[in-house]
């Protein structure tokens, strides 16, 4: 069992958990993820690592309460336990001094992006950060981003805060040169940013979060096409060259189980199914 040490609401329905997991904390590096199982009937959910503290023996991850498991997680409090946490999984990010790095984070992936910002800064890079979300409420951790970045840009799809959409990014790239771009966010956002950076020739690294089950190369449900080759996001990634990823296929594969996910989530809203795992 893995004990929750702290919980923090970073935005409406978005939470950051710090969990006791000394083995994982000792090995975790930016870019990696953990696999969470909430209880004995639970699914395996991959979550990108947002922070780790080897001394304290804790690891942090953020989640948005959109599906059954994340809603169930949202009810847990400090001191509660999670049945299983496996990790760290996936390959660590390539962190080194590139020069000027643009870090782009969207919605719930803002929290793990800040670990990239921190690591890139510590490696000597000048980091510019762009935080985006559909609406103002999806933004989070702006203060942390401010503290670690040279400059922070904000954008929302509806323009409720900061720039409206990502059009401004093209203009920014026309005036400012970046040596590397790191994007963590919804697939549509990673696709859009990759398309914007491509003509400028900025190496762009995206973190893919397709459906996964085991997260260690066994099932192949996370297969993605990168540069025309079939790769597994869990063991070959999760970071890939954004200019090589077939995002449309990824979007389609992410929706494979949408009806089942909705059913599960709705049943949960109705007070759980008849198996005794009720909400309260």
């Amino acid at each position, binding site marked *: 069992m893995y004990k929750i040490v702290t919980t923090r609401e970073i935005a409406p329905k978005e939470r950051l958990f710090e969990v006791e997991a000394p*083995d*994982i904390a000792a*090995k975790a590096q930016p870019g990696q993820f953990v*696999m969470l*199982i909430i209880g004995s*009937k*639970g*699914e*395996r959910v991959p979550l990108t690592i947002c922070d780790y503290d080897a001394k304290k023996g804790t690891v942090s991850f953020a989640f948005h309460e959109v599906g*059954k*498991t994340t809603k169930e997680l949202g009810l847990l409090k400090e001191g509660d336990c999670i*049945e*299983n*946490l*496996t*990790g*760290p*999984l996936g390959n660590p990010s390539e962190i080194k001094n590139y020069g000027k790095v643009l870090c782009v984070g969207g919605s719930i992936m803002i929290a793990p992006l800040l670990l990239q910002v921190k690591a890139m800064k510590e490696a000597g890079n000048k980091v510019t950060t762009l935080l985006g979300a559909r609406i103002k409420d999806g933004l989070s951790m702006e203060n942390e981003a401010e503290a670690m970045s040279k400059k922070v840009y904000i954008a929302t799809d509806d323009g409720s805060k900061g720039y409206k959409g990502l059009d401004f990014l093209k203009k920014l790239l026309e005036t400012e040169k970046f040596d590397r771009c790191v994007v963590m966010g919804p697939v549509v956002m990673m696709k859009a940013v990759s398309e914007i950076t491509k003509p400028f020739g900025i190496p762009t690294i995206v973190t893919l979060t397709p459906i996964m*089950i*085991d997260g*260690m*190369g*066994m*099932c*192949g*449900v996370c*297969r993605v*096409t990168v540069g025309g080759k*079939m790769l597994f996001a869990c*063991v070959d990634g999760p970071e890939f060259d954004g200019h090589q990823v077939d995002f449309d*296929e990824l979007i*389609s*594969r992410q929706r*494979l*189980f949408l009806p*089942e*996910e909705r*059913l*599960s989530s709705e*049943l949960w809203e109705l007070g759980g*199914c*008849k*198996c005794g795992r009720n909400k309260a």
Partner: protein
Amino acid sequence: MAETKPKPKIKKEAIEMPKQEPKERVKNFSEVALGYSEEQALEEASRCLQCVKPQCVNGCPVEVPIPEFIKCIREKKYAEGITTIKTKNALPAVCGRVCPQEEQCQVKCVVGKIGQPVSIGRLERYLADWERDNGFQMPEKAKPTGKKVAVVGAGPAGLTVAADLVKLGYDVTQFEALHLAGGVLVYGIPEFRLPKRIVQNEVDYIQKLGVDLRLGNLIGRTHTIPELMKNGYDAFFIGSGAGLPQFMDLPGENLGGIYSANEFLIRVNLMKAYNFPEYDTPIRIGKHVVVIGGGNVAMDCARSSMRLGASVCLLYRRSRDELPARKEEIENAEEEGLVCKFLAAPLRFIGDERGWVKAMDCECMELGPPDASGRRRPVPIKGSEFTMETDTVIIAIGQTPNPIIQRTTEGLVVNPKHGTIIVDENGKTSLDGVYAGGDVATGAATVISAMGMGKKAAKAIHAYLSNKK
């Protein structure tokens, strides 16, 4: 010997084991084979000739003392019988169910020369199930040696090594990457062939022996073998299996509705997707499932799909005679409604507007001369293309070892073609004190061959550590 000579007249037919009727069982995930009653077990046991030089034992990869345990059944000394098996085999309830006895112990049975061989597997299962109903007995353990062994993987090979070494007095830590122990026994073999509570019982038994089982611990990520060496482990056994699924590299393979056998079986078995939404992990199954492949894994996928309500066609590129699956499994599957399409292979998958598979183009094959595997090689017939409608495809064409341990253990020599760890006949790898066995060394094979290699490796590790100061 007080034992009276068996009567010369032996019944030629083996006692059949009761099974669920095909029409019924295809609607549920409960175990198909129901096990012998005491009367049936006694009658079957009476068919054993109690050979002075038993051939059956030679056919068993772990050398279970077969005539001895059958004798115990005849004398109704069931506790003694199971103890006899467990001197050699820590997982009898599993082996009694999934071993291919017809190619191992039973093929050598002398009774088989005049009729059907003694049903050794069914009798083994009878004793194992008897023990589960009557309480486990703990074997004697040797004095602690003070030496630590790390076992990587809690599948058939790893569980065997862990059980053998803990009984010899070693301090055994077993690292399992998944959240449940059992390896292929829990993620691969379906509930209706091997109920998961039976695997869990065997795992519980091994834990009661004193093995420290650490779940959710992926060696190569959470810890590495070189790190564990520094942390005081004296020897290692790698039994990480063959978990990496193979795809066909055909157009359209990433469409929705196309599963690797591993994904399909992990969802259904490990995550219990057939109980969705009580369990969180879903499975989407259409009406017309095509399973590509012909091994036991393909049969497991086909039979699971039928239980989920689909009609299933097995597509195999060779003919019936070359099917690698156990005959019993093929018969079971066909009784349940499996349709086989032999001598055909897919060319491409075709999707609908939502990105879901709706058909596949295939071509017919004929058999040419034998290939490296000794089986006749399938050769495409020109102009034989045809289209099959389908909404779910399961690719069951084999698995290879996961490379993560090999990549994170410097000096471990690996077969570059198959990714398997190279070992000698005792399971010793290129590294001192590091042994390996099961599918990670052989490529995908059977549960019992993995256990057999585990046995040998455990012996070799014991010898190695006994000599090591």
